[in-house]
């Protein structure tokens, strides 16, 4: 009967159908909410990771593999210029900056802290942390012995803008060196450990302190995060073809934390989806089996009228398809309302390892609702297979005898 009979058959037992729809809708809504929440969290962490590392970094394999003594991995200015040429050819390339990182000590006379100094190009928008300033300012191109420190470090060493600190380090030749720095600004970041350890200084001054004209990495910024892998592949080929012994690492390669978290989120969502699917599957299986039993005589009638076994199967399956579509679509709508309410509540949370409260949120977009919709839809359809097959295999005379 086309779409009419299966659709109307759904409403024979309204209470049962509404219960079934509620189960599917609730499963879809919970799934959409959790997926939206996890996806939102993942994207925020992704954004912050890319902000910390750039889309990708180019450095010597020795640096990536930590198989080096001293500063043998540094990139000479000529090689850096060649890399710049290759990068300029990449579509989606936004900018790059050179960095020179080195460990050292930062002291005030009273306290000392182990730090990781990042020599950066002041004024270069790639990774300058200028929009994280909480006091003073970021580094300027005219700065020399200036340092931009994290909030946690500033608290620990009781630093403020204008404070003088002493940095001690080892040059590329193994000699000790030290220099006073003026704190020009304080930044904040989501990661307390980063705030405590990382200080920014002008690249030229860092090179002078280390007595080198090299840099240890080139940080690359792209228009889209999604382009990262493609550009990394192009660069690997381009660097090898140009005989430059450098290799790119993408932001997710550089951040094991992100990869672990993303994989944990995926596992969490897969487990939840599986649990919901199983729940939906067995409840709908039960409901459809009951519905089939109640209509055994009717199946006998339509078979007697000439409906084939396949058509009976399709009829019952179509009924479940309606149930699946209505339930899953309602679930998406409920999930969207739930997410809107959750986002409007602006719930604050302090993630471990951070010092700023974070506003919890969930994302709602085609991708985050399509997956829960598809999971509930498929689980419902699968649950209909057995009752539909049973109905289609009935012997007509036996079915007609059922009162």
């Amino acid at each position: 009967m086309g779409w009419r009979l299966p659709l109307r058959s759904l409403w024979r037992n309204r209470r049962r159908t509404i219960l079934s729809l509620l189960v599917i809708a609730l499963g879809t809504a919970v799934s959409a909410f959790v997926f939206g929440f996890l996806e939102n969290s993942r994207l925020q962490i992704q954004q912050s990771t890319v902000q910390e590392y750039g889309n990708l970094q180019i450095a010597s394999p020795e640096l990536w593999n930590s198989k080096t003594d001293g500063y043998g991995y540094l990139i000479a200015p000529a090689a850096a210029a060649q890399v710049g040429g290759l990068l300029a050819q990449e579509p989606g390339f936004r900018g790059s900056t050179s960095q020179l990182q080195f460990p050292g000590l930062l002291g005030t006379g009273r306290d000392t802290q182990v730090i990781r100094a990042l020599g950066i190009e002041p004024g270069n928008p790639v990774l300058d942390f200028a929009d994280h300033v909480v006091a003073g300012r970021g580094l300027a191109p005219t700065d020399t012995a200036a340092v931009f420190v994290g909030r946690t470090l500033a608290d620990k060493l009781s630093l403020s803008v204008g404070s003088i600190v002493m940095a001690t380090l080892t040059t590329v030749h193994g000699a000790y060196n030290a220099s006073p720095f003026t704190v020009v600004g304080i930044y904040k970041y989501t990661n307390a450990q980063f705030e405590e350890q990382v200080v920014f200084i002008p690249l030229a001054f860092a090179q002078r302190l280390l007595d080198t004209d090299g840099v240890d990495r080139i940080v690359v910024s792209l228009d889209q995060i999604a382009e990262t892998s493609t550009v990394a592949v192009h660069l690997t080929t381009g660097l090898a073809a140009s005989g430059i012994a450098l290799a790119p690492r993408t932001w997710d390669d550089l951040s094991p934390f992100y990869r672990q978290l993303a994989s944990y989120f995926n596992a969490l969502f897969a487990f939840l989806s599986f649990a919901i699917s199983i729940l939906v599957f067995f409840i709908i299986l039960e409901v459809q089996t009951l519905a089939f039993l109640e209509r055994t005589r009717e199946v006998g009638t339509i078979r007697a009228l000439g409906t084939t076994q396949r058509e009976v199967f399709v009829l019952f399956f179509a009924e479940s398809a309606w149930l699946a579509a209505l339930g899953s679509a309602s679930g998406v709508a409920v999930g969207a309302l739930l997410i809107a309410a959750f986002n409007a509540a602006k719930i604050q949370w302090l993630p471990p390892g951070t010092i700023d409260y974070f506003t919890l949120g969930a994302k709602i977009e085609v991708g985050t609702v399509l997956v829960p919709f598809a999971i509930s839809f498929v689980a419902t359809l699968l649950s209909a297979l057995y009752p539909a097959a049973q109905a289609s295999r009935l012997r007509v005379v036996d079915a007609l005898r059922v009162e």
Partner: protein
Amino acid sequence: MGSDSRFCHVRGRPFLEARDVTKTYQVGAETVYALRDVQFAALQGDFVVINGPSGSGKTTFLNLMSVIDRPTSGDVFIEGQSTSAKSEGQLALLRKTKIGLVFQSFNLIPVLSAAENVEYPLLLQKRPPAERRTRVAAMLSEVGLDALARRRPNELSGGQRQRVAIARALITGPMIVLADEPTANLDSKTGEAVMDLMRRLNEEHCVTFIVVTHDPAVSRYAQRRVRIHDGQLIEEDVGGLASPAS
């Protein structure tokens, strides 16, 4: 006008034939014969009433004739073709195109309206919507239900429901209609009306009717009367057919 003239009766090859049909059921270790070596033939336009007490094998016979069941031995022929080797799908096709069925409990689909119930076999035949609408309207008009086309079965009386069932059985223009106790769930007046309708349709459409009943009143409509007893069919002499109205 002789009494037989009320029936459309075309002599020729039997449309429906049972040859040596036996149907047994296994009850524990015992084999029960529902039908034993039954011979039967129906010609186009026949109006056959099959009588018999409860448990005599009437419904079994009807199930075999309507190819919704298979005989233990023997064969049922439709338009001269054996049905014993046919697949389930081929038998469904025969039921869909050649046979109309009327059930004791009407067996209408409760979620469909009267018109939709009548339309159902045409949908199975994948007829175009315009043709379906025209034929359903004409058939409902013929059984006097055009005003109740949109009503669901639970909004119809027993007699109205049986008329919908008859319309459903005839909508595809079958060669034969098999009716199982069509008046059993109706009061005598409504039962008579339903039988009058079937008789009229038999006359007008020249469709073979085989009516199984235990109601002696229905026998009055028979052009051929067959008694079923202990799984055997016995053709009875109708003689001067009494007018149902008399």
